[in-house]
């Protein structure tokens, strides 16, 4: 089949040189798309309210004197770590379920660029959420009574941020692999439960779970100390549950016919 659609106007019309959309702009658009829908905005509002509630309750509780920065930060990050991955899933899958792929890929035909922008936008979302959590924790700190509340090793700061990043990327990876909102979100929530149930029931799974249960290995990031073996466990589970699904997902996204 040969289709020659709209041929360019003849030389009488000046042709302005068009340049491709830079990746940063594509990323900014993808970030905006996470927040400008009703579902996205509500999800972000819920995360914000939960984080505010957690930090408020903890700093006003009778345990408050025991909390230092790190002790407050962990629980504050948790709502974002649980719910932002859903936004990561939807960032990819809603395009397919709402068929906005027809617009997105018509405007940006290089699908890998869009995929890269989605990953970068998810990272940016995690960083922004983390910054908000840090600010909320800092604001609540005067109410905590630890003698040295600001004591916080830089490594702990970095690890808590990485915890958020790992979770959000997990959402994006599942979204890319399954390209279906419901399936990806259910799998994201059910997988850790399945691991813990199966791990208890089947003794033979206990040891693989140590290395492959991402909810456990990523939880290590919130512990005060991580050994080299812990990092290896985290790396292994990230490779299996984030890197592998994402690679397979990218192949799917690149090949799938858009209708």
């Amino acid at each position, binding site marked *: 089949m040969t289709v020659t659609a709209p041929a360019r106007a003849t030389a009488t019309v000046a042709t302005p040189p068009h340049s491709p959309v830079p990746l940063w702009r594509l990323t900014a658009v993808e970030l905006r798309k996470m927040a400008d829908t009703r579902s996205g905005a509500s999800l972000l509002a819920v995360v914000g309210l939960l984080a505010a509630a957690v930090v408020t309750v903890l700093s006003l509780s009778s345990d408050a004197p025991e909390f230092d920065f790190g002790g407050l930060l962990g629980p504050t990050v948790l709502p974002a770590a649980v719910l932002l991955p859903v936004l990561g899933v939807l960032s990819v899958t809603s395009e397919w379920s709402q068929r906005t792929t027809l617009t997105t890929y018509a405007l940006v035909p290089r699908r890998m660029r869009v995929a890269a922008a989605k990953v970068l936008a998810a990272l940016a979302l995690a960083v922004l959420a983390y910054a908000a959590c840090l600010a909320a924790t800092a604001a609540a700190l005067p109410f905590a009574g630890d003698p040295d509340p600001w004591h916080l090793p830089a490594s702990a700061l970095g690890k808590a941020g990485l915890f958020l990043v790992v979770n959000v990327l997990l959402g994006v990876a599942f979204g890319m692999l399954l390209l279906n909102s419901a399936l990806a979100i259910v799998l994201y929530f059910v997988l850790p439960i399945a691991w813990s149930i199966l791990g208890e029931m089947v003794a033979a799974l206990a040891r693989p779970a140590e290395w492959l249960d991402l909810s456990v290995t990523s939880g290590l990031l919130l512990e005060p100390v991580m050994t080299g073996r812990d990092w290896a466990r985290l790396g292994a589970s990230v490779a299996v549950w984030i890197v592998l699904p994402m690679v397979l997902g990218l192949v799917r996204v690149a090949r799938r*016919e858009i209708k």
Partner: protein
Amino acid sequence: MSFRCTPGTVTGFLGPNGAGKSTTMRLICGLTPPTGGHATVAGRPYRQLANPGREVGILLDASAQHPGRTGRETLTLAAHLLRMPTSRVAELLARVDLPAAAARKRVGDYSLGMRQRLGLAQALLGEPRALILDEPANGLDPEGIYWMRGLLRDFANRGGTVLLSSHLLREVEAVADRLVMIGNGRVVAQGAKDELLSGAGMRVRAVDPAALHHALAAAGLSATPADGGALLVDATAEAVGRAAAAAGVVLLELQPGRARGLEEMFLSLTNGTTTPEGTAR
């Protein structure tokens, strides 16, 4: 299948449902991989265009918008991707007659007609010189269809290229200069609308068909029967009229016959009885 659209024209892309119109349009836009052949836009494969939305405006399915996003936001996102100033958004909303109150509403609350207007605004946002529109009149009211015809005509008159699909011959006839008709994934007819719709042959109908037949035969004109007791005659209107007048036959109808021919071909495609050579019954 092979066809070409040129600047300054509106090409009507016709075919029954399932003939491959939408698939062809998706192929042009690089959304569906072809099993063979190629499509170019402005001389290049679509995927190689630096910023395709600046070359060609696309509206493949007005319903394919996120329902949770407002109309204005949908256009703003497109403006960012097209590297157009966001002031274009208000401009386009006015151009497609979407009032500010409607633009603030979520697309999920839009009627199909409003979605078509939004989709058209999105297609026009990047100041393209070509438009590819799949069934853009779907869901528009008669006034909206009339408005859209004017907009597309104006776009083409200013040197733009338009390819629009439809499964309704009449709808396309009113705005297109050229027609491409497909059936079962093949082009069955294409050319200038005037050539396809008029041209040789007259359709004639009389009170007494038998008398008409005799009159035409007497005048040396060959006639073939058509639907409704009419005859298709390969002659000018004057020749047919004179032949009838000479025999005193009362005519009920005398009009260019190929329009019926095209319509019959179209109907036969719709009925699934494709005529492979693209000739009317």
